[in-house]
C-alpha cells in the first residue's frame, strides 16, 4: 500500500471536520463494510457509534458545531428497517426541527445531513462522506469557537488572553 507521510502539498491546511453519528445496526455496520471492502474515502468524518439514530439528541449536534465541527452527518436505517422499529422516524422529526433551528442560527442547512444507509451499503458511506467533504470544502470553515471568541470580544473591551477563553468555552 502506498502511503504518504506529509499533508498534501499546496493545500491551505484546512479541511472540513465532520462528526458522524452512526447507528449500530445499519450505518455503523455499513462503515465497517466499507472498510472490509477497502472503499477508500476522505478521512474527514469521525464516527461516533450509537445504538440507534433515535439516540441523537439535538444537543449533540449543536455541541459538535460549538466544538468546531464543520458538518454533522447522521446515519440510520432505511425507513421501515429500524432495529428498534421506529427510532429513525423519531430522528427524522428532530432533524427537520434542527434544520430550522440551524437556519435561524445562521448555520447553512447543508452542514447537517441525515442519510439512511443499510448494512449492505458500504458504497453509500463512501459516496456520502466524499460528497459531504466536497460540499463543506466549498462552503468553507464554520469556525463557531472562533466566532464565539469574536462575539465575546465585542462584549468585553479588555479581551482576556486566548488561552483563558479557550478554557471557558471548552468547559
Amino acid at each position, binding site marked *: 500500500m502506498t502511503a504518504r507521510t506529509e499533508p498534501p502539498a499546496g493545500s491551505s491546511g484546512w479541511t472540513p471536520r465532520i462528526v458522524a453519528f452512526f447507528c449500530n445496526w445499519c450505518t455503523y455496520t455499513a462503515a*465497517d463494510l466499507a*472498510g472490509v471492502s477497502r472503499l477508500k474515502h476522505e478521512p474527514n468524518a*469521525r464516527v*461516533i457509534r450509537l445504538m440507534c439514530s433515535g439516540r441523537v439528541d439535538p*444537543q449533540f449536534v449543536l*455541541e459538535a458545531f460549538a466544538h468546531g465541527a464543520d458538518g454533522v452527518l447522521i446515519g440510520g436505517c432505511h425507513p421501515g428497517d429500524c432495529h428498534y422499529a421506529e427510532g429513525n422516524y423519531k430522528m427524522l422529526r428532530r432533524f427537520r426541527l434542527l434544520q430550522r433551528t440551524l437556519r435561524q442560527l445562521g448555520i447553512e442547512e447543508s452542514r447537517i445531513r441525515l442519510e439512511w444507509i443499510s448494512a449492505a451499503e458500504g458504497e453509500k458511506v463512501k459516496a456520502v462522506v466524499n460528497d459531504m467533504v466536497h460540499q463543506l470544502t466549498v462552503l468553507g470553515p464554520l469556525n463557531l469557537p472562533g466566532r464565539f471568541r469574536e462575539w465575546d470580544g465585542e462584549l468585553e473591551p479588555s479581551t482576556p488572553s486566548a488561552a483563558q477563553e479557550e478554557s471557558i468555552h471548552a468547559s
Partner: protein
Amino acid sequence: MIANPGNQPEVRIGFYVCHCGHNIAGVVDCPAVAAYVAGLPGVVLSRDYKYMCSDPGQELLQQDVREHRLNRVIVASCSPLLHEHTFRQATAAAGLNPFLCHMVNLREHAAWVHTDRHAATEKAKALARAAVRRVTWHRALEVKRAPIHPQVLIVGGGIAGIHAALVLAEAGKEVFLVEREPSIGGHMARFDKTFPTLDCAACILTPKMSAVGTHPRITLWTYSEVTKVEGYVGNFTVTVTRKPRYVHEDRCTGCQECVAHCVYKEAKFRDEFNEGLGKRKPIYIPFPQATPQVTLIDPLVCLNFKKGVLTNRCKQTCVEACGDRQAIDFQQQEEYLQIKVGTILVTTGFQTFDVRRMPQYGYGTFPNVYTALEVERLVNASGPTGGEVLLRDGRRPGAIGIVHCVGSRDKKTNRWCSRVCCMYSLKLAHLLKEHSGAEVYNFYIDLRTPGKGYEEFYDKLNTEGVHFIRGRVGEVTDWAVTPEEEGKLVIRVEDTLAGFVRRIPVDMVVLSTGLEPRHDAQAVRRMFNMSCGTEGFFLERHPKLAPVSTFTDGVFIAGCCQGPRDIPDTVAQAGAAAAEALALIDRGYVEQEPNTAHVLDDCSGCKSCLPLCPYAAITIDPVSRKAVINEALCKGCGTCVASCPSGSIGQHLFEDDELLNEIAGVLAE
C-alpha cells in the same frame, strides 16, 4: 478539558493501539498514536502492540491492569462489532468490570479506508482522544441474564429446514417447522437426480421428509406462514397463520379416494409441482412423496367455491368418497396460532430467475424453450411424461441446446454467479442424452466446477460426446436461413474460442436459470429484523466467522436464502445453524447488553417519553408521578433519552456525559 466525574476515584487509563499485523500499522503510525495518547490526562500507560487480540496481547492487557492498577482500558484496533466481546472478557479476567473497557475502530474506519498516512494518523489520534475522554465517564455495569425458551422455530421446509429440524429434534429439542407450501421438500423434492453422484433426489430426501412428519418432537405446519414475530432472543412470540386446506390433517389418511371421485373426471388444472407441465384436479396431493400425505382443495378451481367463496353448488362426490372419515370440511377457516420460542432458523430458500425478463431467449414464445426446473420434471420418472423426454408437441428432440448463465453474471439482470447452474446443466446434459439420445450442446461463459467430484463429473461429460461451445447466447430464433434450420430453433452465439458467430439448430432449448432471492424476501427480512445484502439475500453477521448468524441475536439463517449454494453446502449450513441454536439453548440463558435506559431523579412526569417507546417499556409511577422504565422490556435504543425535555433519562453505556465528551474529544485539537 471537561472535569472528571467527581464521585469516582482517580481515573487510571491504559491505552493499547493494535498494529493488526500490517492492517492498521501499514497506514496509521501506531507508535505516534501511542505516544500522543500517553500525554493525555488520565492516561497511565499507552502501548502499541502487534496483535492485541492474540493470547499474548490479552495477557499483556491483564498484566498491566494488575500491575499499574488500571481502572479503564481502551483498545484501538478493529471494529467493536468484531472484538468488543474479546477485550471485555480480557478486562473482566483482569478483575475489572468489563464495561470499563472501550474500543476505538482504527482498522475498518481508518486504516482500510484511507491512503494518506498523515491524515489517517491524525484521525486515529482524534478517535483515541475521544475514547480517553469518554471512558473516563464509564461506570461499572452488571450484565442481566434472561432464560431461553428451549423451543425452536424453523421457517421454510426445504432441505435446509428439514435437516436442521431433524438435528434439533434428535438433540431433544422441540421444533416447530412452518412451511408455506402444502408439503415440505422445497426445490430439492422437484429435482430428478443430484450432481455429481447422480443419486435420485427423492430417494435421499423422502426418508428425511417422512422422519420430519413422524418425529414426536417436530410440530409440522405446512400450508402455513409466519405472520408476526415479537420479542427478543430466548423469548420470541410468533404468530403462525394456517391457511385452510379444507381437509382435516388428522383425519385424512392420504388414500386419495376423494381425488379419484372428484366430479372432474380428468385432471385439468395447472400442476404447480410439475411447473405446469402436468395437470391436477381441484382436490389433490402435490406429489406422491408429499409430507404430510394429506390432500387439499384449491378453492379457486373447486366447483364448490366460486372465486374462492363457498357456494356449496357441487355434488360433493369427494365428501361421499371420504365417507366416515369425514376429513373434508368446506367450512374450514384460516387459523392463527401463537407459539413461544427461544431461537429462530430462517431457511426460506430461493426462487429461480424469471426467464421472461430475457425475451431474446424466446421463453413463452417458442413452446420448446424450457427452464431447467421444467426439464428436471420432464426427466423425472414421476413427472408429467413419466421420465420420457418429449417436447410439448409430443416429438422426441434430436438436438438440445443448454444455455448457461440465464439471469446470472449479467449486469442487466443479476450480477452474481448462481454457483449451481454449471453443475446442474452438466447433470441435465447427461440425463437428457441418456433419456433421449439427442445431441446436446452446452453454451457457457466459464465452466465453474469447484467441489468434491465436480471437475471429475465435467471430465466424464466430455467423454460422453456432449458438445461445449464457449460464448454467451445472443438469441434463440425460429428464423431459418438454410433448409436444415427449417422447423428448428436456432441458437445464435459467438463462439469465443473459434472466433466467429455460429448458428446451431436444435429442437429443444433449456435455459439454466440462476437463483435469486424470493420475491418477498424484504418482507420476511423486516419480520425477523434481519438485513439484506445489495442483491437481496439475507445478510450474515460476518461473512466468514458468523456465516449463519444474523444481526438479530437468536435468529439464524441457512441455505439459499443467504446466497446461492448447492445441496451439500446447504445441509452443512443447516447443521451449523442448528448447532448454533443448540449452543444457545443448552446454555439456558442469554446475557443482555446492559445498555438500557434509566430515569434520573429530575423527572417531572411530563409523559413525553411514553409514546416514543416502541416497546411500551415506560410507565408513570402513580405514587411518585415519575416515569419508570421496565428494564426487561427496554432494548436500549435511547430514543427516550434523546427526547427527554429535562434530560432526566440516561442510557447505560451511552450516557450524555460519555457522548458529549466523545464529541468534544474528536474535535479537540
